[in-house]
């Protein structure tokens, strides 16, 4: 019997998709600034990258407030329980038509691997990107802030490392959303808010 659960509320979906769009756009403009390819032209790429970055900052302010106000932040509390079960499912069970070992619910939206991944992004990858990005933006003020010893190269390399990790996450994320009940059920859930469960 298929059950339908209203898993993702309107703000949550808005946050997810606008964040997804901004991150993809930031990757595109960022790698152009990095010299990996040419599309907008360097100047426009820089301008757009900065606009998108500040937009994402704004979005995050709302999202953090929303998570705190609604208690949704609890979905990112890590657990060691069932991590191995999940790993085993992805590495073998999924090929043998075994049932998904995790059943999401309103109080527990993410499987243990998701929790770990999202938490790592939240606490490690994002701070790396934000921190280096802000330093990059305020390059002219380093001397005034007493940071004249800081090298732009370190900041730039840190920012680039963050970008590559985000790219890798994006690729795996785009694939893993196909591993739900049906290939399209997870993406549908994030669009409509309704998730179909066995």
């Amino acid at each position: 019997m298929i059950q339908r659960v209203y898993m993702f509320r309107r703000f949550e979906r808005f946050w997810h998709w606008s964040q997804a769009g901004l991150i993809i756009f930031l990757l595109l403009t960022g790698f152009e600034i990095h010299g990996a390819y040419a599309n907008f032209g360097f100047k426009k790429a820089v301008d757009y990258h900065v606009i998108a970055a500040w937009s994402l900052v704004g979005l995050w302010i709302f999202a953090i407030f929303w998570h705190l106000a609604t208690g949704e932040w609890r979905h990112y509390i890590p657990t060691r329980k069932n991590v191995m079960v999940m790993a085993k499912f992805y590495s073998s069970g999924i090929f043998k038509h075994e049932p998904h070992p995790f059943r999401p619910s309103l109080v527990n939206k993410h499987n243990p691997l998701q929790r770990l991944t999202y938490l790592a992004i939240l606490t490690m990858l994002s701070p790396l990107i934000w921190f280096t990005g802000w330093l990059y933006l305020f390059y002219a003020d380093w001397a005034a802030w007493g940071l004249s010893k800081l090298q732009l190269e370190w900041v730039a390399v840190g920012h680039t490392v963050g970008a590559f990790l985000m790219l890798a996450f994006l690729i795996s994320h785009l694939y893993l959303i196909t591993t739900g009940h049906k290939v399209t059920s997870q993406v549908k859930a994030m669009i409509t808010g309704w998730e179909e469960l066995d």
Partner: protein
Amino acid sequence: MKPVFARVALGMCCAAWLAVAVAVPADEAKSAPKPLKLNTTADHTKFKELQNPFKSGPEVTKACLACHTEAAGQIHRTKHWKWEYLNPDTKQMLGKKTIVNNFCISIASNYASCTSCHVGYGWKDANFDFKSEENVDCLACHDTTGNYKKPPGLAGNVVTKDMEFPPGSGKILKAIDLSQIAQKVGKSSRDTCGACHFFGGGGDGVKHGDLDSSMSAPDKELDVHMDATGLDFTCATCHKTSSHDVAGSRYTPMAKDTKGAHMSGRADNGNPASCVACHGNGPHKKEPRLNQHTAKVACQTCHIPAFARGGVATKMTWDWSTAGQTDAQGQQITRKDAKGRITYESRKGDFTLAENVKPEYAWFNGHIEYTLLSDKIEKTDQRTPINKLGGSPTDGKSLIWPMKVFRGSQPYDPINKTLITPHTAGNDDTGFWKNLAWDKAIPVGMKDSGAPYSGKFEFIKTEMSWPITHMVAPKEKALGCTECHTKAGRLAGIEGVYLPGRDANKLVDTAGWGIALLTLLGMIGHGVLRVIRRKR
């Protein structure tokens, strides 16, 4: 009676008017000079002292000094007069009197020719009296007529009677009217400064690359500040002169002005001829990101996209080692390129010339050390620097500057290991330009310099850097981002700065793309396996 009287009176008036009208010759009425735009309280045409026919430059100067009693003394303290400058940082004695370059090499033994650009009269040899007040040349800088000329070869003197020069050449130098020039003196102009500074190195645009006769009345494209129909700056607008002391120096230039826009009455009383002196350190209001560049990049780097943009070519190389070739009759020859520019002269050697030249770029902190005649130099594969420019990405005093780098080959004494100052100009038997004989020209020149000469010479490759600062283009023509923010851009050779778009950490890039690719392959593999297994 009354009407008759009135008629007579009217007739007399008419006659008087006619008489006045006739008395003024028609030509003079037509060519009557435009009224001088007075921005001083004195109209020099009214001074009786200036209405005499002057027979020489010093006579004019004496008249000037009768009122401007301290002017000569002020001039005596300047580089323009002394051609001598003690660099306070390096303690090197510099100035035109001492330095050796890789253009015409040196003024020693060539005074009469070179000193046509001295602000004085009569510097014909090493015995010139630098204390003389009447030998100060006021008109070189204060002429407003454009008629004031100091032909090379006359030791800075002017021609007041038509004369044949050089004697026996059949060339006539025309006399100039010093009285007329003296009555119209005014502030210095692009033309007065340019009379020497546009022609440095022996011809129009030869030396600087960013100063040539096109700057006499430039359009906005060529120089946004000097634009003759726009802002119409003179040289002295930036090189703000006080007590005849002209701001700005090529020996101790200010590479990085951190003091912001200059305010009248500011305590430090500084007077830099820098961009920042007017524009401040953060002049990009609409594009604040550009202000971030000012920590590393000189204004000139972006705002002077190329030099020699006014249609006058500048010399880029000069090879003295090929000088001396003659035709079958033993006559001096010249060769020209397709554009009619001289690329070979028997008396000077081979040149290359160029217009619209993209500068080279270097970190520069304002310290310049010259290679002087007294310095021992080893001949190596590297070019010997005529001037060594200080600068590094880490000294906190340097910015990335545009440069004209002038490369040449010039005489060198392999025994004493010094540069050589040959006697070039002069209508005498030992002058190289006349007789093309190095063995005669070098001993005379070296003797005049007071330097030892071993009797042997060869040629040494040299280079000289000229920071570019004039010919500032309108902002629309400033460099775009990708002139530098790209793999092989203008700053490709500049080290010590991370340039987004140019630089990347190879390891991070390789690892990063590797991780992204492996993730992709992993996901594809996983997906394919799922599809295959599901079908079973």
